[in-house]
């Protein structure tokens, strides 16, 4: 078992009278892909800045690769890659000059710049044009290229897919899964949850500066106990009555189609009851709760306890 690459313990950050982050603790293991999810202004960017050592916590400690990132000779930053939210560059320089500048600062060999441009999908012709002429997507790709300089062990990506079209988004997640298998720890923040499904090992939900949920998607689903929606369409021969199944409240949606919300622990037995006579069932849909519903649940639950 390797030591965690990032450790936050009891971290709080206050800006004047505003508490951006309150008592947050978590660890990121090596090779994990973690999604940091929350509304705009929930404290995601502040957490990332704390991990980069750009700001110091008011309370608690931040450890990145065993060091305090805000202290010392910034050696730890050599092994970090960061993509800021809505990244911007010096407009007058070309993409190639921009990347060369950052590569020099990170003491990275510049011989493989072509490969890097190719990986993020920036054409060589575009790399020689001034950044001024770039579209949002191209700028984002250049941003990703600079974050990948020097094969960092930890990648901190703040809203990496905002402004990308669906094709680029898919491209981006392919890149991320490639990095994940290479053992890179990736933290990406987002407020678009549905696109994260199946792409992260773990989700941390932040609201008003507090980490309100932390775990794998399965674990979070278990905690939330959100009902699974089952809809059944009965075959022609069967009677037009709701399927049997004890304590379930079936609702008629359309002719012969019934829907029910079932608790996770009853799911299997109800499915067995419904499918007891295969000939009677024309169609069956089982819809697990989506990430958006999960997210709404955690935010809602938080609101109620107040």
């Amino acid at each position, binding site marked *: 078992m390797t030591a965690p690459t990032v450790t936050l313990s009891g971290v709080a950050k206050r800006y004047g009278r505003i508490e951006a982050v309150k008592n947050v603790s978590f660890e990121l293991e090596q090779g994990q892909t973690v999604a940091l999810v929350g509304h705009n202004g929930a404290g995601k960017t502040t957490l990332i800045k704390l991990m980069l050592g*750009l700001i110091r916590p008011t309370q608690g400690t931040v450890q990145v690769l065993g060091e305090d990132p805000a202290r010392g*000779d*910034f050696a730890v930053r050599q092994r970090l890659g*960061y993509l800021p939210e*809505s990244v*911007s560059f010096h407009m*007058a320089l070309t993409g190639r*000059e921009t990347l060369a*500048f950052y590569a020099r*600062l990170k003491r990275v060999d510049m011989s493989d710049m072509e490969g890097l441009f190719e990986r993020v999908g920036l054409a060589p012709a575009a790399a020689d044009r001034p950044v001024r002429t770039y579209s949002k997507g191209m700028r984002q790709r250049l941003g990703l290229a600079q974050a990948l300089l020097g094969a960092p062990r930890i990648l901190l990506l703040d809203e990496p897919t905002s402004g990308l079209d669906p094709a680029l988004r898919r491209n981006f997640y392919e890149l991320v899964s490639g990095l994940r298998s290479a053992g890179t720890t990736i933290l990406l923040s987002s407020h678009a949850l549905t696109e994260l499904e199946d792409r992260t090992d773990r989700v941390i939900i932040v609201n008003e500066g507090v980490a309100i949920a932390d775990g794998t998607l399965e674990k979070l689903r278990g905690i939330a106990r959100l009902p699974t929606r089952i809809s059944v369409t009965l075959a022609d021969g069967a009677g037009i009555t709701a399927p049997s199944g004890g304590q379930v409240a079936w609702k008629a949606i359309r002719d012969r189609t019934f829907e029910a919300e079932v608790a996770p622990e009853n799911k299997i037995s109800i499915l067995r009851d419904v499918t007891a006579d295969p000939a009677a069932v024309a169609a069956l849909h089982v819809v697990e709760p989506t990430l958006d519903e999960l997210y709404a649940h955690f935010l809602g639950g938080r609101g109620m306890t107040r």
Partner: protein
Amino acid sequence: MNNILIVARKEIQEGLRNRWVLATTLLLAALALTLSFLGSAPTGNVGVNQLDVVIVSLSSLTIFLVPLIALLLAHDAIVGEVERGTMLLLISYPISRRQIVFGKFLGHLAILAFATLFGYGTAAAALAMTGTEIGLASWWAFLAMIASSILLGMVFIAIGYVTSALSSERSTAGGIAIGVWLFFVLIYDMALLGALVAAEGRPLPSGLLDVLLVLNPTDAYRLLNLGSGEAGALSGLGGIAGHTGLNGPMLVAALVAWIAAPLALALRIFSRREL
């Protein structure tokens, strides 16, 4: 150390790309050429070394123009990058804020030095090519004038960084920079003149005059270039120079202090700024 050079190189690259270097060099060269040929016409051939005339007129030009160029270059340096969002990425790299400020300073200094050297240099070269005889002493005075002009530029680059580190918006930094320029170039001397008039001819204690002249970097520059030798006689500033206890090295030291103090202040403000 290396990081400073990397940042300086990027600043120069940007200066070349957005035509800052070209524009300032051309502007200084055009004005210098105009002054050296039109300005020397009335003096005719009365035995005054022509290059000395050029030194006097170029020094007066420098006092207005070089601080303005320096402030225009510098006021954007920190707040501009913060506002555009490039600073956030830069400080996430293994580079200290001190290295960022020094690197920018070195880059801006190089741009300004290039413009001054080549802009003013063309005037001297043109004068030499038209067959004017120029003494060795005049050449040295001319070189000293260029060197001190660059020194004056450095002062205002450093002051520009202070306004840039203080402001939260570019427009604020620009406004403060214009205010600083007006104060040092126009208002300060007018106020000083007013005070002398109000004193009704009573001589100021010479120590006070020295302090007042050193408290404004443009006055220190003026005295340095116009206060002695041929130039002193031509500009009429030799009179004041005779009354102060300030000599060349002291004036240079004052200018250096005027560079170091604002630069240290800008660094202090920038280091404490949270992004």
